[in-house]
């Protein structure tokens, strides 16, 4: 079997509610995480993201200053972000479909509706580590591929898989990305 050694991963928790941050931190420690940093709003979260280069970001949606969606959009800037490919897990009380779509379109990797549980959070962590999705860059979007599964009913023109492949140095996509740890 495989297991994810969370002790080898660095986390950033961004949530304006200190109780929720303590709950998430307790769960992460239970998973074996040793390095978890905290920020209490999107602005502080962005600063901490740049300072600590976390491997996984866990963020709330609703926060003062700027919220989890805005934080996600800032991180998913291939030209300026220190790691635009970082997995972002959004933990939120919003459960409506339109909210999930909005988060997905901002570049969130995984979405977790509260109440939070150890198993649900662990599943999201395993998912982003074990089954990372490719990234898509278009004129209006940069983020994880939004197609989770093939749509058997799709009858339109398939745009993917007809282009030219190459291997490139990641420095051309976003200068300063951390791939060296």
């Amino acid at each position, binding site marked *: 079997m495989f297991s994810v050694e969370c002790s080898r991963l660095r986390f950033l928790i961004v949530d304006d509610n200190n*109780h929720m941050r303590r709950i998430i931190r307790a769960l992460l420690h239970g998973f074996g995480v040793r390095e978890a940093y905290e920020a209490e709003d999107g602005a502080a979260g962005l600063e901490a993201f740049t300072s600590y280069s976390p491997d996984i970001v866990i963020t709330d949606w609703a926060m003062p200053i700027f919220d989890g969606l805005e934080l996600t959009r800032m991180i998913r800037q291939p030209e300026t972000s220190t790691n635009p490919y970082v997995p972002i897990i959004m933990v939120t009380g919003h459960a409506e479909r339109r909210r999930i779509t909005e988060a997905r379109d901002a570049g969130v990797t995984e979405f977790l509706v509260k109440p939070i549980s150890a198993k649900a959070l662990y599943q999201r962590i395993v998912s982003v580590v074990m089954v990372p999705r490719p990234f898509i860059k278009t004129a209006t979007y940069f983020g994880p591929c939004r197609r989770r599964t093939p749509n058997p009913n799709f009858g339109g023109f398939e*745009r993917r898989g007809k282009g030219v*492949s190459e291997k490139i140095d990641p420095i051309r996509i976003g200068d300063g990305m*951390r791939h060296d*740890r």
Partner: protein
Amino acid sequence: MPRLIKKMAPAMKVEHGSDHTVIHPHNALRARAVVMHDGPHGLDETAIRRAEIALQGLSANFNGWMEEACRTLVVAHQATKTAERTKNSATTFHRAAHDIRGHGTTLGFPLATRVAASLCLLLENLPEAIANSDAVSTLVDQHVDAIRAITREGVIQSTHRVGETLATELEAITERLVARFSGQTVH
């Protein structure tokens, strides 16, 4: 330093389409954090159990945290009723309700989560003219009072008879109201 990173950074596969690019970043996390060992595939139940125990270790605080969240809600609600009511006070009140919707169940108060979810539905979906009416204002008060009562009485069971009836009634009234007025322009 950028030169050093460039030298060490593994290549990534990139596919160019007519109007998009597909990028397969190097999976550094998998290489670093995944460990294979004997046994069947599946989630690491031991890690999950450890996390559940860690969460349980915090549970002595949960009543106090819920009371704090409830106080924050009540204060924010009062601020929306003053003459200086601002958009900011409305946002703070909504955030306090949203927090209880999110945390109530984790803190052991599932009925508070239900009532807070109903309150959020009310705050998020009505046109301003309807939201400011006396009837809606009374309904908002009733939601806040219900959350206070659930917290004060320590109603932790989702099957608590009075609490469950209260939550169900508030949800039903809210859903009817929202179904009737949401998205409509009020003249």
